[in-house]
C-alpha cells in the first residue's frame, strides 16, 4: 500500500439552489508509471490511482479513468450543479486494491 496518502477536497460550504460550483480534488500519490527502471535495470511495477469516482448522495457526478500519463499526486477540477443540500463522496481506487475515500457536505439554500 502506498504510504502517506492524503486526500484534499475543495468545494464551497454553501451555495444557492441551481448554482454551478467548482470542485477541486487531489490525492498525494507517487503514481509509479511502471516504465521506470531501478538501478539494476528492472522495471519498477506500476502502482497508480486508476480511478476516481465522485458521487453526490449516490448520484454519479463523474468517473475519471487515470493512466500513467497523469502526474504524481493527481489533481482534478470539475464543476457540478447543486439543487439541494447533500454530501459529495469521493473514492480513489489504487492498483494495489486500496480505496481511499473522502466526503464533503454542502448546504444549499
Amino acid at each position, binding site marked *: 500500500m502506498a504510504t502517506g496518502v492524503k486526500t484534499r477536497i475543495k468545494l464551497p460550504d454553501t451555495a444557492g439552489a441551481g448554482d454551478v460550483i467548482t470542485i477541486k480534488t487531489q490525492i498525494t500519490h507517487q503514481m509509479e508509471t511502471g516504465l521506470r527502471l531501478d538501478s539494476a535495470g528492472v522495471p519498477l511495477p506500476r502502482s497508480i490511482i486508476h480511478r476516481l469516482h465522485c458521487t453526490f448522495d449516490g448520484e454519479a*457526478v463523474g468517473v475519471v479513468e487515470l493512466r500513467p500519463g497523469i*502526474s504524481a499526486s493527481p489533481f482534478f477540477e470539475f464543476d457540478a450543479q447543486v439543487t439541494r443540500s447533500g454530501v459529495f463522496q469521493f473514492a480513489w481506487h489504487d492498483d494495489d486494491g486500496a480505496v481511499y475515500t473522502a466526503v464533503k457536505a454542502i448546504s444549499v439554500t
Partner: protein
Amino acid sequence: MRLTRRTMMITACATWAGIGLPARAQPAEPDADEVIAAFIGDAPVRSDGITLDLPESVEDGYRVRAEIDAPGAEEIMLIAPANPVKAVVSVQFGAMAVTHRVATRIRLAGPQQVVALARMPDGTVCRTTQHTDVLIGGCG
C-alpha cells in the same frame, strides 16, 4: 583472445546491444491511432464543440496543466501520442456535471500534438489537438 582495448569496447557494445535493448522493450502498448480509433468507432467526427487548453511550451513535462471543455459531452478522452502510454485520461460525466469541463495535470514525454476527444449525446465525436513544446520530458 587477447584482451585489448579494442576487444573490450566491442564486447561492451555487444553486451549492451544484447541485454540493454530487450530490457527497454515494453509490452505492446496500442499506438495513438489505435486508441483514437477505438474511442471514435464509426461515429462521425467534427472539429468544433471541444476546446483543449494546454500551455504552448513548458519546461517541465512532469506537471502540465490541461483543461478540456466540451459542453454537452458524455465522455472525454485525452491522448498524448508521444508518451509511452498514449491514453492519458478519460472522464465520464454524470448528470450533475453540467459544464462538462475538467482540468488536471499530465505528464508529457516530449514535444507533441496532444489530442482531445469528446463523445456527444447525438453520437458524434468532437476532436481537437493542441501542440505543446516540452523541454524536459516527464515520462522517464
